[in-house]
């Protein structure tokens, strides 16, 4: 072979031999450059069709131009021999570089990132490698990775991989299987053709091998190896392999392709995060002095006493606390808290004797969860963000859209719905939070789409009769329900129209704006969609359209009367394009017959030139009797109805755009008059304890337990006004 000419390349020396043939150093005598030429063994026995396929695939691969892909210059046939002319790379294969106990983590991350980048480019062009392995990855002395043999495996098929790479074929299969046994994904053994995710599995094997020095699935025979791939979990990698890297490898090596990373870009992002995380981890330290700082300026505080009624208002520029009594007619205004930050979510936690306000604050310095036990006089501000996406997800928190309390008898349980759409859970009173993986790993998740406000999980509903059942709503993803405490979730959107997909009634993907459940009749839910108003009487199994006589079925908020399960309030806006109240009139609509008909409620609300928008959490009821309804607008007006919607009064105007409203009664046993209605199954609105406490620190007996030593250690700072 030495001295022969293939095309215009003269063979100079043999530099390697593999299952599919020999590789030579050659000189391109026309372009005057050194190249590598791979000559496919005749013994491989390609027929004419297979040869032609191989040539076509090699030509397609030659179109891949990427710094981490070995460039294919030319493919050809000479004297019945197929040859591939490619970039000559000085370097060693990753397989040869990996020593006994594996490579240092930073090297694994550097190489892994480059391989993922190469796969990403090829996958974008519709090319699947199908035989990614450490022997197909070259590393130059500068640390540059070059992935070899893209797309060649498919056409060379089962017959090629003999000798040094063990072959595997299913007898009788016409297409055979391609790849190298220890790197093959489980689905290949099930006879599936494999796709991009097959390469991501192989990437996981390569990363495991590079990090540990051995393969994740080993055996003495092909049968043992394939059994391990199909049935066994890889042995965990501990230090010095960083936990983040191990997490990425695990997600590549999930048996079910739908549960793996779905794109090479996701793996790249996750590896990149682990790489950056090395900087972060290096800076994590345990105990240090707590910085005590002042961060509230010119803030008025309300002085809360027993019997006071409080309205908590979140706006795009901060939060306000409005104080009144059970008559709800005169209001004292406290705030603004969190100057300039958006407060998308507020919650009042009165469980276990607390009187704690939770707030999510968002600015270009990030999104944080904060709490106050003294009605805003001081706020717990975490030093380090408590809600954070794990490194293997590659995602970062954009916003917290909803804070929901857990059951009454689990007072340390809290949930947050966030953007990008995910559910977080805390079981220690907000001290630490974890991603609810059952929902995050749902195969639908990669196909949820961001709406105008981002891809947000904004509604969380707990069934008071069954603690295993919970609902969440995602814009735009749909309604999901769990019946097993969050382990598994199903899409529950039957009957809900979608305007953004060709299929008008898809399984999921609807842009849900709000869902409400009646606490006394939890099988009943009402739903405001992006066009569409629905009711379900069977725990979201089926939904029926109840937009009977509303001026528009487009809108954002939807709330239920706290006692009457047939009574619902909404604020329709004209359309998707013009998200303002219909005809310039601010009208709340109410049904008292479960959606059979709707009536406008307008007395006291502006009925001329009022082009208002009411956002999804800016309409709430209280639980007093008669029920109070509160509505806040994007133009910063705040209204109250103290007679269940019949008439309205303006509480204030000139607020920043209102994002959310919550309320609470500081219950006073001696207060006469209105009945605070304690018969409800779940109370989130009434405090059972006294009002004000000390103003400087959280040291009351009732909260001392909750404010554990963990809470007061260095991870949190206390801001005081």
């Amino acid at each position, binding site marked *: 072979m030495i001295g022969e000419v293939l095309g215009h390349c003269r063979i100079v020396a043999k530099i390697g031999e593999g299952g599919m043939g020999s590789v030579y150093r050659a000189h391109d005598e026309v372009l005057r450059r050194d190249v590598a030429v791979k000559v496919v063994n005749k013994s491989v026995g390609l027929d004419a069709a297979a040869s032609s396929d191989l040539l076509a695939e090699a030509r397609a691969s030659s179109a891949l131009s990427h710094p981490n892909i070995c460039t294919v210059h030319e493919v050809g046939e000479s004297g019945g021999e197929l040859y591939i002319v490619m970039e000559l790379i000085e370097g060693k294969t990753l397989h040869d570089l990996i020593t006994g106990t594996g490579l240092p983590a930073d090297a694994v991350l550097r190489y892994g990132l480059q391989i993922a980048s190469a796969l990403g480019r090829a996958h974008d062009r519709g090319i699947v490698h199908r035989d990614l392995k450490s022997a197909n990855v070259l590393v130059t002395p500068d640390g540059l990775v070059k992935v070899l043999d893209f797309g060649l495996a498919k056409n060379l098929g089962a017959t090629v991989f003999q000798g040094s790479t063990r072959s595997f074929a299913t007898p009788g299969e016409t297409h055979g299987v391609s790849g190298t046994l220890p790197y093959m994904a489980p689905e290949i053994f099930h006879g599936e053709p494999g796709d991009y995710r097959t390469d991501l599995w192989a990437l996981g094997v390569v990363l495991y091998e590079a990090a540990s020095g051995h393969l994740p699935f080993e055996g003495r025979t092909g049968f043992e190896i394939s059994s391990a791939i199909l049935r066994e979990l890889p042995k965990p990698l501990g230090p010095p392999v960083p936990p983040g890297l191990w997490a990425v490898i695990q997600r590549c090596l999930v048996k079910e392709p739908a549960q793996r990373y779905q794109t090479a870009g996701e793996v790249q992002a996750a590896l990149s995060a682990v790489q950056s995380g090395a900087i*972060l981890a290096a*800076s994590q330290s345990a105990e240090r002095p707590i910085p005590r700082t002042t961060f509230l300026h010119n803030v008025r505080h309300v002085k809360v006493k027993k019997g006071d009624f409080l309205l908590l208002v979140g706006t795009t520029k901060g939060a306000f606390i409005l104080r009144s009594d059970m008559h709800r007619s005169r209001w004292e205004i406290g705030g603004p808290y969190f100057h300039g930050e958006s407060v998308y979510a507020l919650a009042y936690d009165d469980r276990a004797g607390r009187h704690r306000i939770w707030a999510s604050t968002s600015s*270009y310095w990030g999104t944080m969860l904060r709490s106050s036990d003294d009605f805003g006089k001081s706020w717990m501000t975490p030093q380090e963000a408590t809600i954070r*996406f794990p490194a293997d997800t590659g995602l970062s928190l954009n916003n917290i859209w909803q804070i929901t309390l857990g059951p009454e008898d689990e007072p340390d349980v809290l949930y947050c719905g966030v953007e990008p759409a995910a559910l977080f859970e805390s079981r220690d009173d907000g001290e630490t939070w974890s991603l609810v993986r059952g929902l995050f790993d749902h195969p639908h998740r990669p196909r949820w789409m961001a709406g105008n406000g981002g891809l947000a999980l904004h509604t969380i509903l707990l069934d008071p009769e069954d603690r295993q059942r919970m609902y969440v709503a995602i814009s735009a993803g749909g309604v999901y329900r769990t019946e097993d405490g969050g382990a598994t979730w199903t899409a529950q959107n039957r009957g809900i129209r979608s305007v953004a997909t060709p299929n008008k009634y898809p399984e999921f993907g609807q842009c849900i704006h709000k869902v409400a459940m009646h606490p006394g009749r939890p099988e009943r839910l009402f739903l405001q969609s992006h066009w569409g108003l629905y009711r379900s009487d069977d725990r979201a199994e089926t939904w029926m359209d109840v937009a009977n006589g509303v001026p528009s079925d487009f809108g954002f908020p939807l709330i239920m009367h706290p006692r009457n399960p047939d009574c619902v309030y909404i604020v329709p806006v004209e359309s998707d394009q013009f998200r303002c109240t219909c005809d310039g009139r601010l009208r709340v609509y109410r049904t008292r017959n479960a959606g059979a008909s709707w009536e406008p409620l307008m007395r006291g609300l502006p009925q001329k030139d009022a082009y208002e928008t009411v956002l999804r959490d800016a309409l709430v009821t209280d639980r007093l009797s008669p029920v109070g309804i509160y509505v806040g607008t994007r133009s910063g007006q705040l209204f109250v109805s103290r007679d269940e919607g019949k008439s309205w009064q303006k509480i204030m105007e000139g607020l920043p755009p209102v994002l959310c409203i919550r309320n609470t009664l500081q219950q006073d046993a001696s207060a006469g008059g209105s009945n605070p209605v304690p018969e409800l199954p779940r109370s989130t609105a009434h405090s059972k304890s006294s009002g004000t406490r000390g103003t400087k620190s959280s040291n009351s007996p009732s909260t001392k337990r909750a404010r554990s030593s963990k809470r007061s250690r260095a991870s949190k700072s206390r801001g005081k006004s």
Partner: protein
Amino acid sequence: MRITFHLPSALRQFAGGQSSVQVETSGATLADALSALWTLYPGVRDRMATEQGQMREHINVFIGDENVRHTGGLRSRLTPGAEVTILPAVSGG
């Protein structure tokens, strides 16, 4: 080498109220110096960077007068005595 960080008012509460902080670093890059700063003040870290280690979108870091977005980001080289300024971008509504 010694590096001086100048902090905007929003971050001072997470750095003991200081408007500038000096750190000692043996590395030569911005990442090394930030690592030293963030070890002292993790509250500053979580306001500057996402949990995945990406600098937040509207946060600018300058070495001298040069925005590091144009000089290699976290890999930007530092010289002894460098002054690093952290500022929010002019943005928002």
